[in-house]
């Protein structure tokens, strides 16, 4: 087995995380002993990713930019088995949540995580959260450059940053390394697109002020190019402007998107440029040797030199059409000839989107160790990725996934649903999300029908906080509470990103009045059937067709206007 090419803790990192575990152990002991009240303890537990949800405590574990080794995944499976209920839930922030830990067990869990260089710091609170990236980072054929080293540099800069630990509100940064945005950068507080400047040097296009929630906004471009060595200075300039002017009087208006909206991007840009002028050329300049040191952790694995086509794979899928279907849908082009990235769907029919049993986590870890240079990614779409798999090995990987119940061939199709936990778990939710997702996967389970429908993203949130990304679903579903009953509002035409740094991103439009629990699945089917009836050939996707015809035909079909 090859050691994974990912960041590894140095002595400082190990000591820092161990100290934090010891500190939290002491805080838990003091809480149980009565030396801390809940009011005093709550902000301390939140700083370590511990929430109190409907039924129990919930622990949110940081998976930096969604990257895991097999050893780390095995540890998550172990924790699920020993301390929780034998499963975990992968989230749209590329993190993992356990729904049932006991308070007294949490220090032990964090200690186990520290053994594999993981923690839960900054997965809650008004700080800079886990930096997210393209789940095919370092592997995608269309990548300008690997965004992971920069995500790691941002992680190090933002971890316990004294100036940014008590921001007006939480703050999320996403980085894409390809012009085709797979990290939804335009719906983050800051979105970064790795690109080359006029002289060919690497740098970033910077967007600011995106987000979902109750006031969805597409981020605006604030600078078309920041040289890579000046990235931290520019980010710090943005954070200072936000920290200075961001509203602290109203949590619903405290995100940077509101600041950008209220003051205008031009004024914010001027303020940021003034700060940037002061900061650039100082201690925040990232020296070339530091960049190289971090980048070295993410060096390409020791690929074999292979032909682009695999005769072994060709013969295997021709003999097994199910393999061919899975391969066509769940693999992504790799920059190295003879390799692909594999999407391991966590969206089986009737399943809970993003949930994985501990045995499935172990199975994916085993497959990664054997077939993917020990690397795993978590996608913001709540799937797992084996980023570097030889085409020759795909039949064996597929067999391994079948054995683990993870072979659903639906990546990017209508049943590849993003869903928040909803009212089944979440203390903020107004309506259930998971049962709606399950019924939709059952309604559209037929693989031929899914293939006929083609690329279509369906996203469900159980409240206006939009953790299920419904605003950027081609079809979005928002659960609301109407006089004690669950109702579901449908939006159409949303998109998380696309070409040219997410230029395709859009917030969906409300199609009309909401639907009851009994009606909502039929309503989605009506929308899909309407699309199939009006599309300009099988190559016209749902989103393209919607943008061509608008919502009127869908309203007519749904409401008989």
């Amino acid at each position, binding site marked *: 087995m090859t050691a994974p090419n990912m960041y590894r803790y140095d002595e400082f990192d190990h000591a820092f995380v161990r100290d934090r575990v010891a500190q939290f152990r002491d805080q838990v002991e003091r809480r149980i002993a009565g030396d801390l009240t809940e009011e005093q303890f709550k902000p301390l537990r939140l700083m370590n990713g511990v929430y109190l949800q409907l039924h129990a405590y919930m622990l949110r574990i940081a998976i930096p930019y969604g990257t895991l080794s097999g050893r780390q995944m095995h540890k998550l499976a172990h924790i699920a088995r020993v301390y929780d209920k034998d499963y975990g839930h992968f989230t749209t922030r590329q993190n993992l949540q356990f729904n049932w830990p006991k308070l007294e067990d949490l220090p032990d869990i964090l200690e186990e995580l520290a053994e594999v260089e993981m923690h839960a710091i900054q997965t809650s609170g008004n700080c800079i959260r886990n930096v997210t990236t393209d789940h095919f980072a370092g592997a995608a054929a269309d990548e300008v450059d690997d965004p992971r080293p920069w995500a790691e540099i941002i992680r190090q800069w933002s971890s316990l940053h004294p100036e940014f630990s008590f921001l007006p509100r939480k703050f999320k940064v996403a980085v894409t390394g390809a012009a085709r945005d797979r990290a939804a950068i335009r719906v983050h507080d800051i979105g970064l697109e790795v690109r080359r400047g006029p002289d060919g040097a690497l740098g970033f296009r910077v967007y600011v002020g995106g987000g979902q929630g109750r006031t969805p906004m597409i981020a605006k471009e604030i600078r078309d190019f920041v040289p890579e060595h000046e990235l931290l200075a520019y980010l710090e300039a943005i954070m200072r402007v936000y920290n200075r002017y961001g509203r602290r009087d109203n949590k619903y208006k405290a995100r940077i998107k509101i600041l950008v909206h209220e003051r205008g991007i031009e004024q914010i840009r001027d303020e940021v440029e003034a700060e940037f002028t002061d900061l650039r050329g100082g201690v925040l300049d990232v020296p070339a040797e530091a960049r190289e040191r971090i980048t070295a952790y993410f060096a390409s694995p020791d690929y074999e030199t292979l032909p682009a086509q695999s005769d072994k794979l060709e013969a295997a899928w021709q003999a097994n059409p199910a393999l061919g279907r899975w391969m066509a849908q769940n693999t992504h082009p790799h920059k190295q000839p003879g390799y692909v990235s594999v999407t391991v769907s966590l969206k089986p029919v009737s399943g809970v989107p993003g949930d994985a049993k501990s045995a499935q986590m172990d199975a994916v870890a085993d497959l990664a160790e054997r077939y993917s240079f020990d690397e795993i990614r978590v996608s913001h779409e709540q799937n797992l990725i084996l980023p570097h798999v030889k085409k020759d090995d795909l039949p064996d990987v597929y067999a391994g996934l079948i054995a683990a119940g993870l072979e659903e061939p639906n990546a990017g199709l209508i049943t590849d649903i993003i869903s928040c936990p909803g*009212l089944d778990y979440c203390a903020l939710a107004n309506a259930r999300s998971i049962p709606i997702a399950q019924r939709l996967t059952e309604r559209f389970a037929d693989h031929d029908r899914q293939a006929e429908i083609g690329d279509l993203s369906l996203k469900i949130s159980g409240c206006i906080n939009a953790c299920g990304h419904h605003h950027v679903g081609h079809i979005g579903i928002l659960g609301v509470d109407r006089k*004690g009953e669950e109702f579901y509002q449908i939006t159409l035409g949303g998109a998380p990103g696309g070409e040219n740094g997410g230029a395709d991103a859009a917030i969906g439009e409300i199609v009309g009045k909401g639907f009851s629990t009994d009606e909502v699945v039929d309503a989605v089917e009506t929308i899909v059937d309407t699309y199939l009836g009006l599309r300009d050939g099988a190559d016209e996707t749902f989103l393209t067709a919607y943008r061509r015809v608008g919502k009127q035909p869908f309203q007519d079909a749904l409401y008989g206007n």
Partner: protein
Amino acid sequence: MVISSKSQVLTANRLGDGRVVYLSGEGWTTDLEQARLLSDPGAAETAEQEGREAVAARLVVEPYLIDVAAEIDRVEPVRLRERIRAEGPSTGNSRGYAA
């Protein structure tokens, strides 16, 4: 004939494991059927005081009153949120796991 009356129950989460609990005649219970039914403002006020004492004694966190419909053989929260808290997740890997 179903005899139903509107009452309240004091609920909280247990400090040690966060599980949903209800104030009963004697201490706290995970079984809603064993909860003390609070049928007038005085009873509710007494229960809330017991809740504050239980918080101080580090037994529970965040106690609050919920409305329930009490029938001869069962007690059911009025709001869906509280029905899910009482019965556990309605689906998935921990379906019905309430205690």
